[in-house]
């Protein structure tokens, strides 16, 4: 393993990181996904050496760097607010780490030119950084970090301060960097970012990594409601699976006793079930179809989303249902209306 984070613990006054462990290979794009205050930024600062750990160890490229000086770790960190030096020009910013390494002037000039060209900011070299746009400042910060040829590049919410166009540009830049072999750890609260960039992902909640692995596997098999919500799955329930002999079908009993027909291999076990909101049908009357799960309920909320309209229906438990705007208009789906929802037993996914 290229980087091994083993049982990191760090206690603060109101917050703690508990037994954080993960590992990654050289060339990985590792994303740590979590909401604000989950400890992801602290974890970045611990890896970079800005914060010391209470216990645990960090092994980079076979070397224990847990107590190594920050200056000697060869780890670059890029912050959300760019942190470019405001009293220096773009050139001086990029050259800063090179000057510290006492590299000769012509080599510094060559490297500054190379990095600024790579990142498309060579026309800005003599500009004061105060005059740069957010995207430009981010590229300057990135060029400055890359100047030290870091073994690992740590990115702390690098895209969140940028508008959508710049975000896409920088995303593709980061992807290219990774393709060229740069190992990256990137923390974010944005699921889209994780899906589009990561080849490994970890979900952090209240200072603990609660699930990690390949993004597709993690998001298709969320082990908790928190992880499910990240990937936009709202219909996530804890359930016990049993075989109902009377109906000759397996059923999932939710915590409040509500029962849902399910098609799965497991039986007599506990786990979680998910029903994707786009797989649920809404009708004004009960419909005859292949769907076994049919429930009558009350619409308790309706709100527009990027894809259409999201309806929350209370049928004994709350289900989120996504419909198109035209369906919503056609069925006159408003708060307080009684409707039927239906979904197939095969649409219910069990996660042990």
């Amino acid at each position: 393993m290229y980087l091994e984070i083993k049982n990191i613990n760090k206690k603060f006054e109101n917050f703690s990181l508990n037994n954080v462990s993960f590992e990654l290979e050289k060339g990985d794009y590792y994303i740590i996904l979590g909401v604000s205050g989950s400890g992801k930024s602290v974890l970045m600062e611990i890896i970079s050496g800005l914060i010391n750990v209470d216990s645990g160890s960090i092994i980079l490229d076979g070397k224990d760097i847990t107590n190594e000086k920050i200056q000697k770790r060869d780890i670059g960190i890029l912050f959300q607010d760019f942190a470019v030096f405001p009293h220096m020009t773009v050139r001086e910013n990029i050259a800063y780490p090179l000057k510290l390494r006492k590299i000769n002037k012509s080599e510094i000039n060559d490297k500054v030119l190379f990095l600024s060209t790579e990142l498309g900011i060579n026309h800005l070299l003599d500009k004061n950084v105060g005059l740069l746009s957010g995207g430009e400042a981010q590229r300057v910060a990135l060029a400055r970090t890359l100047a030290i040829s870091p073994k690992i590049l740590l990115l702390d919410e690098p895209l969140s301060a940028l508008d959508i166009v710049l975000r896409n540009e920088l995303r593709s830049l980061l992807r290219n960097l990774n393709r060229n072999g740069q190992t990256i750890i990137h923390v974010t609260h944005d699921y889209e970012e994780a899906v589009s960039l990561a080849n490994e992902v970890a979900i952090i909640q209240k200072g603990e990594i609660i699930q990690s692995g390949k993004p597709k596997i993690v998001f298709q098999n969320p082990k908790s409601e928190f992880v499910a919500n990240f990937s936009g799955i709202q219909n996530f329930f804890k359930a016990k699976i049993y075989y109902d002999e009377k109906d000759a079908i397996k059923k999932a009993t939710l915590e409040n006793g509500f029962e849902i027909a399910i098609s799965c291999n497991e039986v007599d076990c506990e786990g979680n079930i998910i029903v994707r909101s786009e797989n649920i049908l809404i009708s004004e009357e009960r419909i005859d179809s292949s769907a076994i799960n049919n429930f009558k309920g009350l619409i308790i909320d309706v709100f527009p989303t990027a894809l259409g309209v999201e309806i929350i229906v209370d049928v004994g438990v709350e289900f989120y249902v996504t419909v198109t705007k035209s369906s919503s208009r056609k069925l006159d789906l408003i708060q307080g209306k009684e409707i039927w929802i239906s979904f197939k037993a095969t649409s219910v996914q069990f996660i042990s």
Partner: protein
Amino acid sequence: MQKFQKFHLILILLGSLVLLFIIAPLLGLFLNTSSAEIFETVKEKEVRDSIWLTIWTSMLATVGFAIIGIPLAYFLAKRKFLFRRLILGIIDIPVVIPHSAAGIAILGFISRDSALGQMAESVGINLVGHPIAISLAMAFVSVPFLINAAIDGFSSVPDRLEKVAMSLGASSAKVFFTISLPLAWRNIVSGLIMMFARGMSEFGAVVIVAYHPMITPVMIFERFGAYGLSYARPVAAIFVFICLLIFIGLRMLTKEKNVSRN
């Protein structure tokens, strides 16, 4: 809207009174002093020496205490530790005590009986009445202006910039000299100017540790006591003029630097 304008009028009126209160006596000082009197006073070597002494002793105090005071300000701005507030309180003490009392305290500190006095004595310097004593008295009453301004300056430098510099390979000292100090410089220069100004205008503490050689504020007091207002006024006018000239010059110089940086 009507009410708003009335309120502005009141603000302008009150503000004008304050400005008048500051400007009028100074203007009176210049208007009541003839050019002949000024000319005669400038010709006096005693006056010229006194003004020069005042300038360089205050400069010495400012430079000397900048070297030891700025690192303290950096430490206080960037580190949270037990007794930090106590230390901040101690720094403000010279501002709140009577300056004559400060002079008495410093006199005890530099007299021949004290450790510092004896050390100076061993190299042939009697601190009492020495320009070094004047500088020390000036520094005592004016150093809070420098330290507080520098603390504000260092506090305004985002920790993140310092952290990034460290991650890029800068040692703590490099971070201080290449990031923190340049970014806090504007506040520090303001503090230096304020300290220098406050040192030059000090009377109470200095008159106790060194009546002679005479700094200009002491000379103004001495001439006023011995010969009256008309004899003291030309010295006062010349000194005020020089003070204003220095401070306007320094302010403009620092402003120019800030403009050229942007």
